[in-house]
């Protein structure tokens, strides 16, 4: 084991874990204040349910030996996952690092279905999805599955995380249907500074995501790190210029979105392409997402926070361009893209994307339908009107306490009541 690699992977894991609260903030700012808590809780819940699910089953399905399609249950309940080395770090740390990926992937989906899904069914959905959709796909690409054998390049999860989440998001948005106000009323972000801060924290966390995927503090991590800085910078520049050229005004929501798109796009490529290619990739990736966002709003598809446009398209562009721009000189001889002599790469990449979409869409549909058998997925119209914070969580994001009447509980039974203050300070004004 290598101490330095451990040091870096500890940090990287913490950084990826932070991405989920950051996503909660990013998404939370984009919805109406009456749904702010529900939206944030959709991400926070993943920290619990997917985290525990990963330890109990998910890790084994993804990284247990198994076959080309699925890991086995030999690692269930973290059996045999201890402090012995896996590569140059403790096996357990590797499992923890991968756990944070599962958590954030599931949380990403929620962006498509905010402001309308009942929370109980959502919990069931996210737990099942983390185990039955995320884990198998992770196995295909990173756990020695068939896509790995095909030679897919996915440095940090363009396909496993982003394309996967986006396909699920699309299906979930279709299954749930649009919000009642969608395309009828203006639905505006209630706190754009939250969204900007969320984007900033996501970027910060993403360094752990991409550079941590090198699994050590080595040159590959340095390359992935640097690309994770440059690609979104380029996307941001292009996004702002597109905004300016289209309307003359550079939006802050757009800037936050551009950063995320650039981060998504560089995810599969981070450790495979040169820094200059990363800039190019980031710049190119702005276009499809930018115009897809505009186009989506004209359709009946209520992918509310545009998971498909940002993560689906960003992830696809990233995956394909990885197959174009990968350079052996930069990735330690691992692989070359179409531009550098291996045109076949792009096809493998495309196959990966298509497979991920198909599997994820199917699995998502099945899980939603299954959960829907037991309880309605959608909040009622009136609940949607009141907001999901009150109806699902019994709380409001921001209260001033006006007109709130304290429901006095029965006083604690005699004997257990606490003594009156010991002091005479009170009310000394």
């Amino acid at each position, binding site marked *: 084991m290598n101490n330095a690699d451990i040091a870096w992977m500890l940090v990287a894991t913490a950084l990826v874990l932070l991405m989920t609260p950051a996503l909660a903030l990013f998404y939370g700012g984009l919805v109406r204040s009456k749904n702010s808590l529900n939206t944030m809780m959709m991400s926070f819940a993943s920290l619990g349910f997917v985290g525990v699910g990963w330890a109990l089953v998910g890790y084994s399905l993804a990284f247990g030996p198994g076959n080309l399609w699925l890991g086995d249950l030999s690692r269930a309940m973290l059996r045999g996952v201890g402090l012995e080395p896996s590569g140059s770090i403790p096996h357990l740390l590797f499992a923890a690092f991968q756990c944070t990926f599962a958590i954030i992937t599931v949380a990403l989906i929620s962006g498509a279905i905010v402001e309308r899904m009942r929370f109980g069914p959502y919990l069931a959905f996210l737990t099942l999805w983390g185990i039955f959709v995320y884990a198998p796909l992770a196995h295909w690409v990173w756990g020695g599955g068939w896509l790995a054998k095909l030679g897919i390049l996915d440095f940090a999860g363009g396909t496993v995380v982003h394309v996967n989440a986006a396909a699920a998001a699309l299906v979930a948005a279709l299954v749930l249907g649009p919000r009642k*106000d969608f395309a009828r009323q203006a639905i505006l972000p209630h706190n754009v500074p939250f969204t900007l801060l969320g984007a900033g924290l996501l970027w910060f966390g993403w360094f752990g995501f991409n550079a941590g995927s090198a699994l050590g503090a080595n040159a590959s991590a340095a390359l992935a790190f640097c690309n994770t800085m440059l690609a979104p910078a380029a996307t941001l520049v292009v996004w702002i210029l597109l905004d300016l050229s289209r309307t003359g005004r550079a939006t802050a929501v757009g800037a936050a979105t551009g950063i995320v798109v650039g981060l998504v796009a560089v995810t599969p490529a981070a450790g495979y392409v040169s820094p200059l290619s990363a800039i190019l990739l980031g710049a190119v990736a702005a276009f499809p997402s930018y115009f897809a966002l505009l186009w989506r709003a004209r359709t009946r598809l209520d992918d509310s926070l545009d998971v498909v446009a940002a993560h689906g398209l960003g992830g696809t562009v990233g995956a394909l361009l990885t197959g174009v721009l990968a350079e052996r000189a930069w990735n330690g001889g691992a692989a070359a893209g179409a531009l550098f002599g291996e045109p076949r790469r792009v096809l493998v990449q495309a196959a990966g994307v298509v497979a991920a979409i198909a599997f994820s869409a199917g699995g998502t549909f099945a899980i939603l339908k299954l959960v829907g058998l037991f309880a309605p997925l959608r909040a009622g119209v009136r609940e949607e009107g009141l907001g999901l914070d009150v109806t699902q969580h*019994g*709380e*409001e994001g921001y209260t001033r306490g*006006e*007109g*709130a009447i304290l429901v006095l509980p029965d006083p604690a039974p005699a004997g257990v009541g606490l003594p009156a203050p010991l002091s005479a300070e009170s009310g000394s004004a």
Partner: protein
Amino acid sequence: MKLVVAIVRPEKLGEVLESLYRAEVRGLTIHRVQGHGGEMERVETYRGTTVKMDLSDKVRLEIGVSDHFVEPTVKAILDSARTGDVGDGKIFVLPVEKVYRIRTAEEDQAAVTPVS
């Protein structure tokens, strides 16, 4: 001159405004309020604290109109703000003694005629 004061549901505001524009009402002032009426209370819980929220969010519109305009204005609101459930709100019509348009210091009638 009258002042029409209406309390409506926030989710109905869009429709009310549209309906008012169609009725050619060109000037109005609104703000968020909280109302208590026959609506059900909501219960909220924050750790060990349970509260009944017996105020619901509403929007208050204030519209200065000349006398013959009162009827169409009220009608426009009645038509657009109704859901039929308890909590749809109220309209009050208040007498006004004088109106001024600040920009021009015009009085009364003139003060609420659209600019055009």
